[in-house]
């Protein structure tokens, strides 16, 4: 059973935003079934995917997440009837926005994992972790985080002049 542990150069940080009724329970099931998956993932529990604000995804990327999973109930199974339908539209739009500003969407995974799908949880998390591991760290946000000051190029004569005039 105990496979030889492979050490990787890079272990990504994965954050999973999940709803409590389906995916959180699905992850619990993976646990009670003693399935194995990479330990990179950190779960943040919500009542419903409908509660998940795109800001959280942005925030997590900024705070060092290399990959993010958002997962909830299958359509029609939402404990609150429609939360996941609203979430589906919201994230369909948000991922397009992120893509447009240059975020590689391979780092942002969405899934439906029901309370009965412990296996799917393992599969989704493992696949995402391995993919991100292969992609390497999400440098873009990290670089941005490190830049402390206004970094606009002083490239026009007017600006240069104005800059020089600062005592």
């Amino acid at each position: 059973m105990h496979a030889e542990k492979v050490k990787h150069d890079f272990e990504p940080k994965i954050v999973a935003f999940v709803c409590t009724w389906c995916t959180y329970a699905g992850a619990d099931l993976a646990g009670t079934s003693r399935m194995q998956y990479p330990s990179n993932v950190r779960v943040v529990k919500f009542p419903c995917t409908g509660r998940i604000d795109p800001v959280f995804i942005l925030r997590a990327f900024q705070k060092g997440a290399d990959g993010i999973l958002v997962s909830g109930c299958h359509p029609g199974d939402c404990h609150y009837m429609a939360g996941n339908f609203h979430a589906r539209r919201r994230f369909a739009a948000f991922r397009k926005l992120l893509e447009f500003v240059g975020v590689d969407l391979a780092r942002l995974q969405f899934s439906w994992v029901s309370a009965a799908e412990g296996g799917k949880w393992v599969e989704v998390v493992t696949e995402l972790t391995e993919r991100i591991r292969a992609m390497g760290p999400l440098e873009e946000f990290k670089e941005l985080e490190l830049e402390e000051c206004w970094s606009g190029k002083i490239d026009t004569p007017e600006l240069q002049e104005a800059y020089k005039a600062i005592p």
Partner: protein
Amino acid sequence: MSRIGVFVCHCGENISRTVDVEKVAAAAARLSGVAYATDYKYMCSDPGQGLLKKAVAEHRLDGIVVAACSPRMHEKTFRNAAKSAGLNPFLCEMANIREHCSWVHEDREEATEKAISIVTMLVERVKKNRKLVPITVPITKRSLVIGGGIAGIQAALDIADAGHEVVLVEREPSIGGHMAQLSETFPTLDCSQCIMTPKMVDVANHPNIRLYTYSEIENVEGYIGNFQVTVRKKARSVDMDKCTGCGVCTAKCPQKKIPNSFDRDLGMRPAIYVPFPQAVPNTPVIDRANCTYFKTGKCGVCQKVCGPGAVDYEQQDELVVEPVGAIVVATGFELYDIGPKPAGSPYEGYGEFGYGTIPDVIDGLTFERLASASGPTGGKIVRPSDGKEPKQVVFIQCVGSRAREKGISYCSKICCMYTAKHTMLYHHKVHDGQAYVFFMDARTPGKNYDEFWRRSIEEEEAVYIRGMVSRLYQKGDKVVVMGSDVLVGVQVEIEADLVVLATAVQARTGADSLAQKLGISYDKYNFYSEAHAKLKPVECATAGIYLAGACQGPKDIPDTVSQASAAAAKVMTLFAKAELEREPIVAKVNERNCVACFYCKKVCPYGAVEEKEIRDRNGNLIRVVAYVNPGVCGGCGTCQATCPSKSVELDGYTDEQVIAMIDAL
């Protein structure tokens, strides 16, 4: 500075086998705001809980993180423990280091590291937790039942028998609904009237039931436990208190040629009428559209002949407001009409079946009236066109049902059975007649149902033809049926005397507008939606409203009665408590910041968001803001994620709590 206690559980060896629990506790102790951290073999055991309670007192803890199993397992346990230690239970959180960590990882180092990080996230979260108190809602222990068919009658009787007052509202002049129109019922062939009328009388005589017939729902306000329902009592033109039901007025009315819709227009009734002899209440009503007095101002015969002086031409509609705590919706169904549909209708009629213009093409309910002993023909089966006894009768199933082309793709569920019943009734009455049934599939699940269907074929000699009909047309006094038998693979043509269409069961016209008044959801066919297809089949998503019968989807009588009793049981469960108590995980509006864009209202699946007017001391409107009714809110938080200014916040899952966790990554 917070004083948080962290308790790391070994769970026997379940956690400690792969997670170094001592190391986790030690790491937790180093976190800022953590006043106490320890590990213990079984946190959920009595000594474990005792340890927690003791620590709360000793270390004056203001927050607790139990790092153990899934909160789905023991959150209640530890919150109760926290409560008994004098701490608000919502300041206690669980870090799941068993299902999400020790059980799914083998590497001890990795698992320990992950456990520490999970604990850290939860510690940061608990710092932002607020004290919450459970929400209580008072309950008015009276109930409204909308619809006086078998579903409404059953629900009303059950609730009333349990000792609660019931307001039963029926649109027609009499209760009874569709079941009162039926001749005999499958699979036992007992007479519908015989089993139905006693129940109708029970309703009329029940001390706990207030019956409003010829009435409709005007308006519904409020929420679970506290609805205010306005009922419009339409002017009957007859004083119900004075009328003795002697029937002289109906006998003397000179206008007698109005098609009786209760008899599917086969029979005639006067302008002042009771729809059928066993009607409850047995008080007539004047059909003002057809009454000579109302049309011309002349006549007035009924008033003159009425001994008690009950006829009142001046009567007006009356609005009554009824406070109730729960509502059962039992508005039933109507049948698909094959006539041409107006532009924009989602449905399409049956031009190929003559759009209802061929007189000897009728629907199943009309056949019921023909077969009913109390019907317009006294139970004799005759053709509408010439009153002759039909010798060849063709029944066509799935007309409108399972026909997405015509606008409906669902199965109407009851037609297979009632068509089988029709062939039997027909054969019992016309011994030398032949019944043919065109069908696509025979769906007969149910106790004694398949046996019943087989009987119609084997004993009553109905000829079942597996195939559909392309077209019907009149030829002389016959109706030519152009069908096919797909088993043989040939076309079939029958010159029928009478054709009976098993038309689809569909939602009542206007079901959507009632739903909007009630704030309940409905599907694309206007059938009302249950909260959960399997686990909440009688509850609406809107708390305090329950469904019974065919308004929720096609249903036969046994299913309808079961669901009605189930809805009644739900009402009784609600009424069993003095107050409604629920978890305080609900959204709250910050009225100062709310700019009233009402995106929250647009996305709320529960209809919990209302528009609240803020007025100054003089009563002038200052502005309007959103208000979340805590009795109705389901706690999903979709409003908060949608609110642009985050002026609405879900307790227990605030932005502060979530962002604290993210920042602790």
